[in-house]
C-alpha cells in the first residue's frame, strides 16, 4: 500500500496498510490512518477505543482480547463496528498504530 504523508513526513505502511514501525504513531498519524479506513472523523468515542488499545499495547505488546476491549471501554461489538467499520482487529488496531492481529481471526 502507498505510504502515508503526514505534514510532509513520509510514514511507511505495510501491504495491509498497517504501520511498518509502530513507534512513529502519533495523533496526526492516527487521523491519516483513519482516512484510509473510511473513518472521516475521530470522535471522543473513537479516541476512547484508540487510547485503550494503545495503553494495552504499550503494556503487553499485543492487542487485548476483544471481549476485554468491549468491557473496559463500555462499548459492545456493534458499537465498535459502527466506529470502525472493518472491526476491532483491523480498523481499530490499524488506526491505533498496532501490529495487525493474525492467525485464525
Amino acid at each position, binding site marked *: 500500500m502507498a505510504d502515508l504523508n503526514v505534514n510532509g513526513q513520509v510514514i511507511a505502511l505495510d501491504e495491509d496498510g498497517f504501520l511498518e514501525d509502530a513507534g512513529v504513531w502519533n495523533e496526526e498519524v492516527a487521523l491519516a490512518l483513519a482516512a484510509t479506513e473510511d473513518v472521516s472523523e475521530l470522535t471522543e468515542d473513537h479516541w476512547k477505543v484508540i487510547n485503550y488499545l494503545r495503553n494495552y499495547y504499550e503494556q503487553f505488546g499485543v492487542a487485548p*482480547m476483544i471481549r476485554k476491549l468491549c468491557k473496559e471501554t463500555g462499548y459492545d461489538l456493534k458499537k465498535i463496528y459502527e466506529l470502525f467499520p472493518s472491526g476491532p482487529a483491523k480498523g481499530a488496531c490499524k488506526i491505533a498504530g498496532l501490529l495487525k492481529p493474525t492467525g*485464525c481471526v
Partner: protein
Amino acid sequence: MSKEQARIPYEAKDLSVLRLAPVAVEDRPKAALELLGEMLKYKRSLRLYLDVCTHCGACAEQCHSYLGTKDPYNMPVARVELVRRVYKKFFAPGRSVFRAWEGAKDLDQETIDQWYKYFHQCNQCRRCAVFCPKGIDTAEVTIAMRELLAHLGLVTKFHAGIVKNMEKTGNNMGTPLPAIKDGLEFLEEELKEETGLDIPIPMDVERAEVLFNPSSSDLFTNTDGLMAVAKIFYKAGVSWTLSSRIAETANFGLFFHEPTMREHSRRLVQAGKELGVKRIVAGECGHGWRTWRMFTDTINGPLPFPVVHLFEEVLEYLRTGRIQFDKSKNPEVVTYHDPCNYARGGDLIEQPRELLRACVENFVEMTPTKQYSFCCGGGSGILMDEAMDLRVALGQPKAECVRATGAEILCAPCAICKAQLPVVMDHHKVDVRVKGLSDLMGLALIL
C-alpha cells in the same frame, strides 16, 4: 488492484523462520524440477495420484473452489494437471516420445506462477477424494506442492508470519505470555460475574488430569468457547490446565511445511510430558485435530498419554452423567457445519451431533452434510485479507447450503471456519450467527 491480483496471496519476504535458503528467481525452474524429482522418490502417494488419474471429471462439479470461482484450473483434475504435465515429460514411466503427445510441458517460470496461484486456491478439503473413482486426494498434492514452493522461497506472508509467531510465543497470534495471563484473569472474572462461582482457568498445573490445548483465537475473539470449556471441566470435576509453552491447536505446518508441522506437534507432546498429564485434549480446530489424531504418534511417539478431542472428552462426561445440559437455553434453529478435517480426516462426525442434540432444541442438518459437506473456503489457511475476493468465492457453495436450512445459528467448531464463515455469510447475505459447539454447550450446561 485487479480482480485476478486480489486472488493471489502476498509472498513472504523473510523465510528465515523456516530455515530455507531462497532460490534466485532465474534458478527456480531448474530447482523446482530437482525438488519434484526428489519428492517423487519419498512421496509414493504423489506419484500414484499423478499416475492414475483417468481425467473422468467426476471431481470437477464436487469442488467448491471450482463451483465458487468458475476458474477451470480450479477443477481438481486441472489443478493436479499443472503438475502432471511436468511429471509426464520428465518422470513418468514409458518412452519420452509418447509423453509429448499427452500435453507434457517444460517447467518454466509461468508454471511456477500457476502453481503458486492455484495451490493457494485449494483449501485441502479432500471433498474431491470422496468422489474420485480412483481415490485421488488433491489435498495431498496441494500439500506437497506448497512444500515444494516453500523450498523455492515462495510462501505466503500470512503463513510465514504465523510460523514466526508460533516459534516465538507458542501461539499463532504471537500473544506474549503476560498478555495471555492477563486475558485469562479477565475471563475468570467474567465467569465469576456470570455464574457467581470461582471457576478457574489454570495454567502450568503439574500432574493435572488434562492438558487442554485451545486455538489461540479462543484467547482473542472466541472467548465464549474457552469460558465454556472451563465451566465443563469445573462441573465434571476434572483437574485441567493450559500450558505456557503452547496454546495453539492450529498447526499451520500441515498446510505447507512438514518440519514446521512436526515441531509444533513435538512442542505439545513435550508440554504434556513436562506437566505429567494423563491426556491431552485438543480444542476446536479442524486441521489441527487431523494432525494430533492422525500424525502425532507416528512422528513424535510413542506417547505416554492419548490425545483426544474435546468432543470425545465431553461426550464421555455426558454419557456417564457427570454433566447435564438444559437444551431450552438454546431454543434457536441450529445447523452444523462439518469442518473438513473432522469429517474427512479426523473421524469426528457423530460425536459433535450427539452433543448438539443434547444441548440445543432445534438441530437441523444441512445438505450436503457429513463427509459430503462443503468447505467454508478458509481451509488450509486461506484467511488472508488480501485474498478476500477469493475467500468469498470459495465460500459461496457453503453459503447456499446454510441459507437453505433457514438456521439462525451456524455451529462451526473450528477456528478457521469461525474466522471465515461470518465474512462469507455477510457477503452472500445469509442472516446467521456463527458459533462454536463449545459456546452452545456452555450456554446449556447445568452448573
